[in-house]
């Protein structure tokens, strides 16, 4: 029984890794080799694809753009959601339940519905093709999620903590930053992870809201593949590189994830 138990996650992880391995495999091949030879590993190993990406600014700027708006969005979402989640977890106020559900409805709006109006709206306020426009537009689905997750974590913290701090003469601001935020650090870590994740992987809005200056890497990939035929090797290399920021983020929050998930409040 014990041995079989290991089998399930192992098989699942192998299934997850297969397409990723295939992408990596392709990224070290030339496009001609990809099309003409079927092989499980690169026969004609090349770093040319990666070299193109790191030397051509239209390529590597795409990564910088994507990381920039993702970081902006994570900061905006979490800092706006912190006080709101506190309010929802500690107080009753007029329309609180309706407001909470209304927030969630925005997580439910299909981005395809909003693509065109977003384009017109952000153009009219002169934010089109800026990083901040994408960061703000991603708040549409990230803020509701951040409030939702943080509210869960905060409700798990007993109210006595707040009351004891006030008795000890803490002001609200000092209590919030010195005591409360460190207490729910794991929750904030998890929330940042989710915000980063959903902003990093989204393409439809990011593509709609940009032309050249702030174009995300994912959009550059679609453009290149359509103009110069399928540059499969280059595409695979660009795709492989998009996995790295996510992997780095997971590595940094891995302890928070284990701890946060262990609290069972996600």
């Amino acid at each position, binding site marked *: 029984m014990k041995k079989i138990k290991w089998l399930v996650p192992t098989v699942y992880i192998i299934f997850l890794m297969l397409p990723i391995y295939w992408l990596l495999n392709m990224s070290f091949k030339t496009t001609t080799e990809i099309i003409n030879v079927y092989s499980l590993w690169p026969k004609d190993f090349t770093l040319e694809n990666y070299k193109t990406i790191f030397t051509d600014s239209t390529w590597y700027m795409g990564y910088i753009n994507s990381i920039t708006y993702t970081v902006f969005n994570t900061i905006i979402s979490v800092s706006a959601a912190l006080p*709101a989640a506190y309010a929802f977890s500690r107080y009753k106020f007029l329309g609180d339940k309706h407001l909470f559900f209304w927030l969630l409805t925005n997580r439910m709006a299909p981005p*395809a519905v909003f693509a065109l109006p977003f384009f017109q709206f952000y153009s009219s306020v002169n934010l089109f093709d800026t990083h901040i426009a994408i960061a703000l537009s991603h708040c549409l689905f990230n803020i509701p999620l951040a409030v939702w997750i943080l509210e869960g974590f905060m409700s798990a913290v007993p109210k006595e903590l707040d009351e004891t701090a006030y008795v000890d003469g803490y002001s609200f601001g000092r209590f919030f930053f010195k005591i409360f935020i460190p207490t729910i650090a794991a929750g904030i870590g998890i929330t940042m992870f989710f915000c980063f994740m959903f902003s990093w992987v989204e393409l439809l809005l990011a593509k709609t809201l940009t032309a050249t200056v702030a174009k995300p890497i994912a959009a550059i990939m679609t453009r290149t593949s359509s103009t110069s035929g399928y540059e499969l090797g280059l595409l695979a290399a660009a795709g492989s590189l998009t996995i790295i920021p996510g992997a780095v983020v997971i590595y940094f929050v891995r302890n928070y994830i284990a701890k946060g998930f262990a609290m069972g409040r996600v």
Partner: protein
Amino acid sequence: MNKTLNQKAWLFVIPVFVLVAFNAAIPLMTVVNYSFQETFGSNVFAWEGTRWFKEILHSERFHASLGRQVIFTFIILLIQLPLGIGIALTMPKKGWGVPVCLILMSMPLLIPWNVVGAMWNIFALPEIGFLGNSLNSLGFDYNFTQQSGDAWFTTILMDVWHWTSLVVLLSYAGLNSIQPAYYQAAEIDGASRWDIFRYIELPKMKKVLTLAILLRFMDSFMIYTEPFVLTGGGPGNATNFLSLDLVKMALGQFDLGPAAAMSLIYFLIVLLICWIFYTIMMKDEGRS
């Protein structure tokens, strides 16, 4: 937790309210605006009343893509939930296996959606892809760009690959919140493995599973980028889901009126289902 009544709490909510309203209310009004008008380009509009809504609700094209969407979402939930729970149950609870599992399993979640589509395209191509080549050499006649059955199979497999980990992570979180005392008590009572799952683990996972179902329902119902890159809605219209159809109409044909009406109907369907689910969930919570 007993909450105190405090109207000043609104001040805390204002930043979130403003940011989301800015993003949701204004674009939504634009959509509503379009849905009642006919556009002739260069900002000339004419009032059309509810014509587009009637047209969409009676159009076979809408029925077809809605049908495909419902079937797709249903299959996805049916596969991913049991699979996710099953994997979470077998995951190690402590030791070096925990971070390894968590990190490796989170990987698919952090890959941009069009890369997921492109990756699966390369992976499934009948000649040069590992999946396509393997299936064909095993004797299956597999080609997802030509046969609709294969296109469906590939799209579903891609989504299972992409999103099952979310259900795993959430279920794992729920399982970890169970105190060891529960298991000890169950052991003393001589409960079977199934009893433990049915009466201890499942109730304790209820909250995270609700979240998992809601997130998976919403996201699979709105799926756009991955099938757009993988199949482009094809072959023919076989995998032309709601979002794909909507974008084709709005940006491809520039039929703003009908597209806006369709957007609103689409949004209302998602909203209605989530509201029903949310209400049932909240009622249950109030009772216990």
